[in-house]
């Protein structure tokens, strides 16, 4: 027994002391709490990293990935200062925020181009119309549209293997709304994964495969995949996703804005205000670095003005709007 207690007595304080020593002396710094979409995460992470460096650790910034919906839940309870969102705030979430007395300022921070990808050896589907995409992905295609030939008689009579993000993803919401006309309305018999790398692997291994995900994943895997040129309207030219085609508004309807929502009360705290200004001032550089499409400079200045003038509410009225160009986005008026 002596032995036992001696070991226990020695081990406990040692463990405590060890753990306490490694904790660094940066107590009681100011804190900016951010949570939300994993799509927006790389941008906000880059901002947080550089911002912390610029304040020499005086301000802490933490970023979580609860998803757009999960992020808004915390945001509307007032638990976070900023919410990352890969789609505009929805009606239900607006009500939650209102009920809790949380007011917010909406700021688009970048564009993401949803990229439709096929195998490198696929020579027939290098351009697709939105109507063809709809034929592949609409709910009624489930169990019926199984081969490429069924989409276009000129294409091979080969089974079509579809890959896409899971139903919890904002990417899925936007794609289904843009292609099928209704968010979350999609065929269910495709290989779904929340991990985009799984989709990359799937499409790169099968010549008959087609999938969609964010532009950054395509850019990193260009050697394994090819992007499909999208024909937005009948008779128009096919447009490949690129920084330019998103900025000039020709890559439609699959280019979508992504946002941060800032709690208006938090914005009164200097560290949050500084962070938001830092975000907008470095928008172009850092967004580009993490492979998203930056907004034009005036959009970022516009955001800083919205923060100064406290332009509360959303410009989207609680729903997703499809095919907005950057110009149109900036002209929308915010409403609570």
């Amino acid at each position, binding site marked *: *027994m002596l*032995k*036992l207690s001696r*070991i226990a007595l020695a081990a*406990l304080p040692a*463990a*405590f002391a060890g*753990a*306490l*020593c*490694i*904790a*660094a*002396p*940066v*107590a*009681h*710094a100011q*804190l900016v*709490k951010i*949570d939300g979409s*994993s799509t927006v*995460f*790389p941008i*906000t*992470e*880059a901002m*947080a*990293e550089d911002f*912390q460096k610029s304040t020499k*650790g005086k301000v*802490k*910034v*933490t*970023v*979580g*990935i*609860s998803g757009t919906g999960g992020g808004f839940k*915390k945001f509307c309870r007032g638990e976070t200062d900023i919410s990352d969102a890969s789609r505009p705030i929805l009606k239900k979430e607006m009500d939650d925020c209102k009920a809790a007395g949380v007011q917010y300022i909406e700021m688009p921070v970048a564009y993401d181009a949803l990229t439709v990808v096929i195998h490198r050896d696929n020579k027939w589907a290098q351009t697709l119309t939105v109507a063809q995409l709809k034929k592949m992905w609409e709910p009624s295609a489930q169990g019926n549209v199984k081969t490429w030939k069924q989409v276009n008689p000129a294409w091979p009579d080969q089974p079509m293997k579809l890959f896409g993000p899971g139903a919890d993803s904002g990417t899925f919401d936007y794609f289904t709304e843009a292609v099928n006309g209704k968010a979350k309305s999609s065929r269910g018999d495709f290989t779904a994964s929340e*991990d*985009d*790398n799984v989709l*990359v692997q799937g499409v790169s291994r099968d010549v008959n495969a087609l999938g969609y995900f964010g532009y*950054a*994943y395509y*850019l*990193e*895997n260009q050697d394994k995949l090819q992007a499909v040129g999208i024909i937005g309207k009948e008779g128009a030219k096919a447009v490949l996703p690129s920084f330019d085609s998103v900025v000039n508004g020709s890559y439609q309807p699959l280019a979508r804005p992504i946002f941060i929502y800032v709690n208006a009360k938090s914005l009164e705290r200097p560290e949050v205000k500084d962070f938001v200004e830092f975000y907008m001032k470095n928008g172009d550089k850092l967004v580009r*670095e*993490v*492979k998203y499409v930056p907004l034009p400079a005036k959009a970022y200045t516009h955001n800083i003005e919205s923060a100064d003038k406290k332009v509360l509410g959303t410009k989207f009225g609680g729903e997703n709007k499809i095919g907005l160009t950057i110009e149109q986005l900036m002209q929308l008026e915010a409403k609570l």
Partner: protein
Amino acid sequence: MADMTVAEIRALITKHKRWDLIFATVGVLALMVGVLTFVALFAGMVMDGAHRLSWDFFVNFPSRRAENAGILSAWVGSTLVMLVTAVTAIPVGVAGAVYLEEYAPKNWMTDIIEINVTNLAGVPSIIYGLLALGLFVYKFGFGQSILSAGLTLALLILPVVIVATREAIRSIPGVIREGAYALGATKWQTTADHILPYSIPGILTGVIIGLARAIGETAPIITIGALTFIAVLPPAPFTGDPAAGPFDWLFAPFTVMPIQMFNWTSRPEAAFHQNAAAAGLVLVVMTLSMNALAIYIRYRLRKNIKW
């Protein structure tokens, strides 16, 4: 049997020995499934991630640049969460088990408790996460903190600790207890002086199995709100300005190793996948060294047991 010749007996023995061989082969194959899988996974991680292991990898915070990114906040977070888990789960689990084994009356209440404890070990970890979100994070107001995470994982491994402790206590011969009682010892004296010291090796095994499970858990920790990007460490007691209290670190935001890995594997850049492999290596080594420590302590303690 008497009319069997020596040759026949030999044949019989050979036949039976063949079964020995067959079973040994099956056993080795079964073992290999597990061992080879682990070796292959480990080798894969070493090949992908070993070149990322450097001092910087351990002392750097996560970063958007894969080559600068490190696991400082993750391993400190994991260590502190494990500390809270161990400090709560071990005393509570051992005390519960001692009560059930030595004190509890044998009736239907005890039976129900026993069945529940055993069943709890099989509850999916996400359920513990949801429970903890409601209880620790909101009801008790601990927030999304190291304390909440540590308590959640403590709940998760509590059944494992209880079951292992009970097994260890049960393996102590009854004569030890009877001897103690015969000399006039009370229940508590018997427990504290004999039962507990003798069952420590078994208890440690259970505790380490539990902690090894806890350190790899992701789902409940995500549920209660661990963060993905955090480039600060919890405040050390009595440092900073104004000085942090001795327990401020318990309420600090945090991340843990599996979440850091998960985030890196879901990145598009291959360089981050190598970071994830390197972090995986560190996590495996952390787990293995916990096991090694347990085996060493168990060995030392066993040497002292004489009966």
